[in-house]
């Protein structure tokens, strides 16, 4: 029940971000330089005269660049912008793929900013959807990488005890103590100048994932140490099972519960790790959005004080974290 709910919720969120190419009205990199930090536009069905419209609409916003107000926009109630469904993306600049179908949009030159815009006038709603792709999957993949490493190394350490155990556990302590920031600098130094969006994504995943194996490996080791002496392991040995067979078939699956709990804790951590990585210039590079670099924007006083809608990525993270939390909880209960 709980499990289904969590899985369904997560699936829904992932489908949403995967469908960014259709659900988002704009290209995430499209700049509207005449609308920096525009506030979110509300959708209406009823106009000022009280007339009901079947087609939702928004009111135009007028930008007053000379105004000293925190949000120098004024809502123009005389100009209604109707929302159209199933529209083709207009060609813009060199980056927007013109002719793509989008779920909704408004007729140019009007713009519809459901969640406002950032400092370049980029549509936050579109960026949120596109950015979710990067962040959610980076978190997921990096966690998978960490856990896989942790599983293998922790499994070996726990199973063979003595020398491998000492070596691997020593290494894990080393890994926990090392200043990651440095390794990251060093890694960046070796990288080629050009990293496409995909390469930098995998780099991000790899870096985050590689740094996190120590904790799970220690936990796995603990589980394996106790699982090693279980009767069914002994029984399989009685049939002449090899070490590899025992590990694969009996011992490592035992660690699954621990790993899932770890996953629920690591995924949020990893999604946010990108905030730090962006600070070092190792995050997803502009103009591609990610929830990490969207939140990094929020860490500036003037944004925090004036533009609350910039926190959209943070709000989006809450249900994601909750659902992972719930998932781990549910999985823990049904071993």
């Amino acid at each position, binding site marked *: 029940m709980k499990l289904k709910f969590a899985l369904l919720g997560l699936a829904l969120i992932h489908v949403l971000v995967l469908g960014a190419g259709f659900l988002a009205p704009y290209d995430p990199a499209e700049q509207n330089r005449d609308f920096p930090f525009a506030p979110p536009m509300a959708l209406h069905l009823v106009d000022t005269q009280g007339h009901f419209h079947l087609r939702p609409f928004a009111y135009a916003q007028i930008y007053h660049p000379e105004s000293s107000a925190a949000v120098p926009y004024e809502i123009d109630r005389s100009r209604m912008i109707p929302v159209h469904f199933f529209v083709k993306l207009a060609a813009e600049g060199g980056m927007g793929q013109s002719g793509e179908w989008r779920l909704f949009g408004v007729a140019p030159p009007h713009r519809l900013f459901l969640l406002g815009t950032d400092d370049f006038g980029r549509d936050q709603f579109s960026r949120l959807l596109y950015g979710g792709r990067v962040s959610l999957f980076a978190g997921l993949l990096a966690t998978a990488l960490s856990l896989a490493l942790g599983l293998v190394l922790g499994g070996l350490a726990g199973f063979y005890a003595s020398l491998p155990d000492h070596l691997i556990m020593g290494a894990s302590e080393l890994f926990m103590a090392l200043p990651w920031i440095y390794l990251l600098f060093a890694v960046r130094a070796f990288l080629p100048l050009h990293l496409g969006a995909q390469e930098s994504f995998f780099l991000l995943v790899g870096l985050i994932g590689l740094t996190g194996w120590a904790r799970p490996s220690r936990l796995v080791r603990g589980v394996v140490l106790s699982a090693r002496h279980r*009767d069914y392991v*002994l029984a399989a040995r009685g049939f*002449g099972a090899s070490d590899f067979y025992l590990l694969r078939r009996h011992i490592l699956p035992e660690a699954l519960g621990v790993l899932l709990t770890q996953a629920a804790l690591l995924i949020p951590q990893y999604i946010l790790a990108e905030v730090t990585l962006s600070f070092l210039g190792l995050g997803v590079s502009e103009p591609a959005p990610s929830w990490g670099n969207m939140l990094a924007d929020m860490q500036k006083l003037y944004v925090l004080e004036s533009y609350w809608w910039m926190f959209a990525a943070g709000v989006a993270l809450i249900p994601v974290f909750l659902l992972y939390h719930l998932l781990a909880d549910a999985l823990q209960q049904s*071993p």
Partner: protein
Amino acid sequence: MNSDPAEKFSQDDALLRVRGLCKAYARRGNWAWSHSRVESLRGVDLEIPAGESLALIGASGSGKSSLARCLACLEKPDCGEIWFAGRKLALEDVSANPRGRPKIQMVFQDPGLSLNPRLTATEIVTEPLLITGWGAGADRAERAAELLKLVGLGADAGGRLPSQFSGGQRRRLSIARALAAEPILLILDEALAGLDLATQAQIANLLLDLQAERGLTYLWILHDLRLVARLASRVAVMDEGRIVETAPTAQLLRDPQSPPGRLLKESILTTPLWIS
């Protein structure tokens, strides 16, 4: 089974012969200074003729399970010799080479612990076949179904997990797995403990039937002398890592010679304490 060398050796020779077996465990945890050695077996001599049912009895901690594990090649004894089917077991390589392992299998004390809760019945029974590289996938599945049927589990049992079986059914599953490796000697380590009387009787019947059908040799490890009386033809009493007395069951139950044997006899719930 027919091609096995075990068939060829004569019936008057013991199937299993153990000489001076000893085993000590180092007890340690995280604490380097707390090393201590617990001598579990201190020179065990034992013979089991083929086809016999020998019961090993003794107080808990007397070394029964340890002996069972050494005999089933799950642990390496520190010294002593084990002869099985006329062949001396090399103690060094008990865990290597699955195909060349002696045909000794063990049924564990608590199937709750000895059956992997994540595997289905079929997977559990197929495991020995898989490890020894017996047949192809389909053959193995067929063999597993046969074995499950043999121990009296229904046709639908194959896909179920251990947790979906009752205690008695789990015992049956455990026996089926041991049989999959086609043992000659079956070590039954408290295989009937913790069961209801009715189930205990059913499992005991199953094992007796199997023994009769397949000419298996049983080494029972039991604590309930009432069961010993019924299941074993000979009894060995263990105490502090040694076998202190071996005798035919009837004789031992009537007149045990060793103090541990006498102690065990006294503890049998024969005379109702209350009703008298």
